[in-house]
Structures are given as C-alpha cells and as structure tokens.
C-alpha cells in the first residue's frame, strides 16, 4: 500500500520531531514538502534543473533551522514558500544581469487528443504571459491561482498586507487578460 505522507501529523510537529532526531519525520517531510517546493520553484524559474537546485537548497535550510523551530510560531509551508521566493528572485536577478533571461521553452508534449493539446497550449501561453509580468505581481498570481494559497498566507510569504496581495493579483490578472486577449481563438475560446 502506498505510503501516505499527508496522514502523519502536522508539518510543524514533524519538523520539531526531526530536530530531535527522528528519521521518520524527515522522510515524511521530504515526501510531503519537496513536491510543493519544486513545483513552485519551477513555475517561478521555468527551468527544471535550476528549480531542483532551489528545492534542495530550500529543504536544506529547513533541516538546518529545525532544532530552533518552535511549534506554533509559524507555518512551515509559509516559511518554505518565502525561502523559495527569495532564492528564485536572486537567481532571476542574476539571470537578467547576465543577459540570460531567455530560457529554453519547455519541450512540447507528444501529440495526443485535441483537448490535451489545447490544455498544453493554454498552460504554455499562461506560462509565457506570467513570465512577462512584474516580479511581485507574478509571485502573487502564481501563489494565489496556481499554488492555491489564501491571501493571508500569501501576505505572510511576501511579507506584505492582504490588501497589497489583492492589489497585486488583480493587476496581474488584468495584465494577463490583456496579454492573452489576442490568442483567445488559438487557445480554444469561442467568440460569444
């Protein structure tokens, strides 16, 4: 029976347990948190190898802070998302500084049903449009609409107020709509 990393206690309790030497807690946290950390880093960086590096580095920082972690002080996921955001921001700024902002486009999926192609096209179009947004708008939109976090959680990650989060996501969505308006038909949306 597959091991279920979601039914093993809270992230915070597990991190404290790991800090006290529990290998079991480390294993559960690895399985539970690495996918989230990697997924978010990949969305921000659009580069699989760099996202893996960031994911490993963020998890390493988590292991290092574990002995000082006090249950109830903060959410582990909020802390981790903040670390990933900062690590990715640093990398993106270095990339721009080196004139390497253009990263290879992801390889297209193998041809399949039309619906699958449209879904892939939509994901790709969204990814491209997101990449053109200002940094903070992009982070807020990804956290809200792709990572599925609440505004208060995003406020904690970005260290701003919830109203600022709402403003960033609203402006980001308006910019996305404008950028993608010309591709409606191509993306399978019919005129009404």
């Amino acid at each position, binding site marked *: 029976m597959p091991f279920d990393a979601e039914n093993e206690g809270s992230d915070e309790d597990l991190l404290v347990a790991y800090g006290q030497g529990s290998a079991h807690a480390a294993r559960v946290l690895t399985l539970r948190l*690495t996918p989230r950390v990697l997924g978010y880093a990949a969305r921000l960086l659009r580069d699989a190898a760099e996202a893996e590096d960031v994911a490993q580095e963020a998890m390493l920082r988590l292991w290092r802070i574990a002995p000082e972690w006090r249950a109830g002080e903060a959410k582990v996921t909020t802390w981790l998302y903040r670390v990933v955001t900062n690590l990715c921001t640093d990398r993106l700024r270095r990339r721009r500084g080196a004139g390497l902002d253009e990263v290879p486009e992801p390889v297209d999926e193998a041809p399949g049903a039309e619906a699958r192609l449209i879904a892939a096209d939509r994901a790709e179009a969204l990814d491209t449009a997101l990449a053109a947004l200002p940094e903070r708008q992009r982070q807020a939109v990804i956290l809200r609409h792709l990572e599925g976090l609440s505004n208060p959680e995003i406020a904690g990650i970005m260290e701003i107020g919830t109203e600022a989060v709402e403003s960033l996501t609203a402006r980001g*969505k308006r910019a996305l709509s404008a950028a993608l308006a010309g591709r409606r038909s191509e993306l399978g949306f019919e005129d009404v």
Partner: protein
Amino acid sequence: MSDTELEALFTAGRARRAEPSAALLARVMGDAMAEAEARGAPAPALVAAPRRRGGLAGLVAVLGGWPAMGGLVTAGMVGVWIGYAAPGGLDAVTAAMLGGGYDVSDMVPSLDAYLTEG
C-alpha cells in the same frame, strides 16, 4: 479575455506541475540525515521515534548511525533507479530505513509505475 477564460488557463496551469525525481528526493533525504549527524542527533530519539520498525535501532547502531544510513539509502535509491535493482546487500537496509511496513516505491511513488511497466 474574460475571468472565466483566464480561470480555464489557470486550471491548465495547475495541471502542469513539476514532480520531483527519485534522485532529488534521495538528495533531500540525504541532506536531512547529514544535517542531523552534523549536529549530533541523539541516538535514543532515533530509536524511539519510528514505532513501526522494531529492528531499526540495532541496525542503525551496527551500521554507524545517521551518516552510514544516509550514504546507504542514497546509494540504494540510485542503484534502484539506474540499475533497475538495488545491490542485494542494500535491500534490507534500504527497506529498514524507509520503514518496516513500506517498500522502496513508497519513498518514490514514480517507481511503482516504472517497475510494473517493466
């Protein structure tokens, strides 16, 4: 583009998510063990925490604690992934490290499909 259409794009975007490789999971787990060893994780906690695995305590002690386990589990995982089967001597160690009631594929769910398809 309407909000509904934009939401359809977000739905497509959420479905496309990077999944961690077996090698990345092994590296992250290896880091966890190396860090625990570096700060001198107390052996009694190691023994007490995983209630489901009776034989682990002695095994960890025999093998030299956290660093040995870290190296072995990493080697075992990479062995499984690259060679399709772990070296025989590592099977028991890897299984014990990953929990008495679990299999290697529990640590790396993607291995399930990989192994059954083969």
